[in-house]
């Protein structure tokens, strides 16, 4: 106050000397959001050295100004500094709006406690960790988070799992766009280049209704960086080399920002690997080739802005040659054999079988803020996913894929964020989406048929601050979807096996010999709701509780799969009679946020009605001999467990990080365990960091995955014609526990004025352990990856 007095006196003295000037400039400083006056904002006339401060009513007044141009700088704690220039020739009154959403304009300083939604249970990985996985996949990067695991096909097709749930039960949101890349298949990994993201959040609760009502597993949010409003040009180049697979990646990005709020970013990534190596042998035909790029530009000011984003991902994955099998006897031979049946010399060639996927994603988003009301955002996006799966074929069909699908998705989403009220924030929005799948002719019956799908949804979420330390959030969402399908069935299957001629006679179109053309149409209504409560205690301890009611309509593969899935060498059957899945989720998280000692203890429980699972269901005999049959069936299920993370500063330079995930999944209908549930696992990491010595970091990590002893027994006997006897096919037993060590070292150097160089040397699977993971679909055929030496070089400029 004394200071203020002194300032005023000074102001008076200065103005007293400027005698010819008697123009008064006054007005009010007002909060943009709720139109309340702001007290204590400073107003500086830049070129005149004049000051004023707003009073309790937000009023300010600057006297004795001369005619001409003045530049005013208005500052207030937690508000964005505003600069305005005005020509004055007489006394005027002008209200100035300030806003306190600094984080929406400038770089977000990422702390673990910045939540996507208030009171949500979530964990994040930041740019530094993303860079560690620059040449790996999204699934690999997320595997570091407790409670997250992955369903793999080999080592490059990695499908993330949250609490044992994957595929359509996980929403992956890439730059605010929900990914639709035929995520229903077990061997379909998300087509995302993680290098394009600045931060990845994993939301374990069901909180963010904004993106959909079907996040039974959870949400993965990939966020790009927000850039500061200033004139700047910067970029970075990251290269990575690996001994295993003799490959690596090159990632470059360049960003230009302007003071006006405009920004633009280009990013490119190329990745190539040859055949990877298990501990003792080559994994023939396991190479990867991947080319990704993204362009982003926009305009960012407080009141309005837009963002345009386009990304392209082109992946080619070789699939282990030894995993190509014909019938059950081939599978039996593979299971019994300690080595894969094809081991050839190292090569960069990607031969059949392989997957080749291209994914385009584009979005345009624009927002405008309204004084005393909130922010209106409209987003339009579209995606094209073209998936080709190649198998070993004969003759003219050699280069024709067995699966060739194109999925087109487009959506329009208006969202309204109302921040008028002090303690209450409301988010509400609409969704309109159209999706079309085209199954191109491949010479085999398509597993996923042609379809058109229409969706509409609306949601509202309210976040209410009960008091300084506790918050309540609640939300509701309704979704409507209609799907219109054209599919050819085997007539006998339609009539007799499935009994669809009686259940769905209205779908029949025409009969051609042994085939029937059908036109199934379904509509679904989904309602979901969330309720969350969070409370902050002393010593940085906070508690988050979450309840979510989530429902999911069956996806096309669950409804329409009907026959041979070539790349999986099994017959897969979905059913038109599938009902929607409905889940009740409870998640609690007790967190202590501190560098010295912090922890997160997060128990959860999910009860899922009509949980759809794909399970082995006996064998079918056809011209190829005995073939494993898998069926989608619905059961009532529960999944519960706990995720624990601990961090502790041992001394000035030493840190410890540990995590533990325990999970149990039960099929309550049959009173047996659920299939493909992650085993208990824990990890420890000890790091040495010396900020004074080129930020030298050395860390030793260990991850242990125990054997999954709770698995359903779907083993069976089959007659082997060559041996003339029944043989036992053990497809259920799980591989033993394994423990992997890895070493990470890094150091940063200043190379020129604005530039820095970061060097990293890492060893994965230090002891070259040979192991198999039960959530790897190729575990019947081969060991997982052996040791890898990795060198990374990052230049910032």
């Amino acid at each position, binding site marked *: 106050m004394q200071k203020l007095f002194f300032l005023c006196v000074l102001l008076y003295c200065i103005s007293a000397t400027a005698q010819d000037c008697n123009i008064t400039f006054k007005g009010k400083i007002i909060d943009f959001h709720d139109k309340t006056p702001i007290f204590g904002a400073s107003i500086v006339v830049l070129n005149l050295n004049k000051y004023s401060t707003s009073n309790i009513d937000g009023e300010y007044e600057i006297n004795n100004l001369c005619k001409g141009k003045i530049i005013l700088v208005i500052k207030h704690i937690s508000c964005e500094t505003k600069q305005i220039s005005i020509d004055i020739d007489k006394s005027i009154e002008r209200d100035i709006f300030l806003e306190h959403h600094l984080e929406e304009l400038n770089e977000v300083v990422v702390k673990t406690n910045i939540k996507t939604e208030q009171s949500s249970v979530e964990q994040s990985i930041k740019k530094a960790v993303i860079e560690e996985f620059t040449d790996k996949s999204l699934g690999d990067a997320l595997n570091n988070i407790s409670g997250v695991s992955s369903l793999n096909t080999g080592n490059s097709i990695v499908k993330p799992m949250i609490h044992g749930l994957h595929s359509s039960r996980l929403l992956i949101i890439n730059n605010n766009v929900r990914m639709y890349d035929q995520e229903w298949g077990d061997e379909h990994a998300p087509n995302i280049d993680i290098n394009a993201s600045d931060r990845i959040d994993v939301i374990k609760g069901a909180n963010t209704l904004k993106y959909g009502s079907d996040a039974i597993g959870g949400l993965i949010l990939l966020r790009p960086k927000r850039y500061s409003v200033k004139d700047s040009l910067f970029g970075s180049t990251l290269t990575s080399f690996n001994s295993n697979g003799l490959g690596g990646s090159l990632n470059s990005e360049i960003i230009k920002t*302007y003071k*006006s709020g*405009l920004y*633009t970013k280009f990013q490119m990534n190329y990745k190539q690997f040859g055949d990877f190596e298990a501990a003792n042998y080559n994994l023939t035909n396991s190479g990867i080739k991947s080319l990704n790029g993204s*362009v982003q*530009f926009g305009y960012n000011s407080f009141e309005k802005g837009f963002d*345009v984003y*386009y990304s*392209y991902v082109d992946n080619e994955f070789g699939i282990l040659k030894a995993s*190509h*099998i*014909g*019938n059950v*006897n*081939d599978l039996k031979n593979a299971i019994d054999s300690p080595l894969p*049946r094809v081991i050839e010399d190292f090569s960069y060639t990607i031969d059949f079988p392989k997957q080749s996927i291209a994914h*385009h994603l*584009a979005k345009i988003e624009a927002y405008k803020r309204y004084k005393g009301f909130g922010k209106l955002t409209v987003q339009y996006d579209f995606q*094209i996913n*073209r998936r080709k799966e190649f198998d*070993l*074929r*004969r*003759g003219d*069909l050699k280069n024709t894929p067995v699966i*060739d699908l194109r999925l087109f998705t487009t959506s329009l989403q208006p969202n309204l964020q109302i921040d008028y009220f002090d303690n209450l924030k409301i988010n509400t929005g609409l969704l309109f989406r159209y999706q079309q799948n*085209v*199954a*191109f*002719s491949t*010479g*085999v*019956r*398509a597993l996923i*048929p*042609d379809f058109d799908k229409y969706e509409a949804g609306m949601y509202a979420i309210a976040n209410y601050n009960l008091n300084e330390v506790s918050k309540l959030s609640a939300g509701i969402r309704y979704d409507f979807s209609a799907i219109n399908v054209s599919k*050819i069935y*085997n*007539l*006998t299957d339609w009539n007799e*096996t499935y009994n669809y001629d009686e259940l769905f006679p209205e779908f029949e179109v025409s009969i051609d*010999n*042994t*085939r029937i*053309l059908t036109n199934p149409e379904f509509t679904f209504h989904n309602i979901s709701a969330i309720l969350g409560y969070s409370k902050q205690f002393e010593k940085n301890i906070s508690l988050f509780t979450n309840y979510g009611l989530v429902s999911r309509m069956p996806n096309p593969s669950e409804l329409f799969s*009907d026959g*041979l899935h070539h790349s999986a*060498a099994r*017959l897969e059957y979905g059913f038109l009679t599938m009902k929607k899945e409905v889940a009740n989720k409870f998640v609690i998280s007790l967190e202590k946020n501190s560098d010295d000692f912090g922890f997160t203890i997060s128990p959860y429980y999910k009860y899922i009605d009509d949980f759809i699972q794909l399970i082995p269901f006996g064998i*079918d*005999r*056809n*011209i*190829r*001999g*005995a*073939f494993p049959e898998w069926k989608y069936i619905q059961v009532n299920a529960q999944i519960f467990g706990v995720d624990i993370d601990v961090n502790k500063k041992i001394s000035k330079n030493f840190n410890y990080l540990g995590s533990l995930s325990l999970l149990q999944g039960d099929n309550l209908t049959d009173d047996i365990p659920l299939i493909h549930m992650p085993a208990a696992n824990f990890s420890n990491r000890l790091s040495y960091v010396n900020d004074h010595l080129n930020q030298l970091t050395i860390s030793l990590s260990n991850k242990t995955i125990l054997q999954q002893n709770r698995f359903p027994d779907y083993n069976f006997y089959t007659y082997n*014609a*060559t041996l*003339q006897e029944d043989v036992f096919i053990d497809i259920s037993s799980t591989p033993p526990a394994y423990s992997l060590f890895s070493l990470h070292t890094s150091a940063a150097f200043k190379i020129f004025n604005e530039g820095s160089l970061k060097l990293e040397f890492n060893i994965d699977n230090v002891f070259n352990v040979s192991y198999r993971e039960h959530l790897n679909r190729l575990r019947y055929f081969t060991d997982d990856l052996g040791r890898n030496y990795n060198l990374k070089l990052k230049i910032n400029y």
Partner: protein
Amino acid sequence: MKITNTIKITRLLAILLISFLTFTACSDDDDHDHDEGTEEELITTVRYTLTNGNNIVTLTFSDPDGEGGNDGTYSISGDLDENLTYTGLIELLNETESPAEDITEEVKDEADEHEFFYTSDVSGLSITKTDTDGNGNPLGVETSLTTGSAGSGTLTVILKHEPTKPNSGSSASAGGSTDVEVSFNITVQ
């Protein structure tokens, strides 16, 4: 300031438009037809014809609607005579197409990537492959079957795609993926 902003935005929008057009032009979603449910590489019929002069025995497995639907059926035209050598010829057909497509030709064209395997538990019955692929390894489209004394049992025909060649002669050790596996119940008398 306002004007430069507008220029910048216009420029950026132009870039967007160009990149959008380039991307649309590059998309390769053209040259394929919709899936019509055709199954070009399907094998519906396996026919093993055994000939000795006018003595002809055919063993046929037929599954005209392919995987799923109706089960396949076996038909055996007659019994084999004891102590006799037959010339064997295998045929693979796709009878969902008209005229029926002969898959055997495709197999012969890629002889080095295929091999037939024959096994039987009828005592004294032996089968030898009489043809070879381009590398001189056995193929097994043409065979010679010699019967011993009377008996009955099964005769199994297996076609492997991409087996190890040469191999020890058993289908299990040859690896590869199984394209055909059928077992006929035969009688020698």
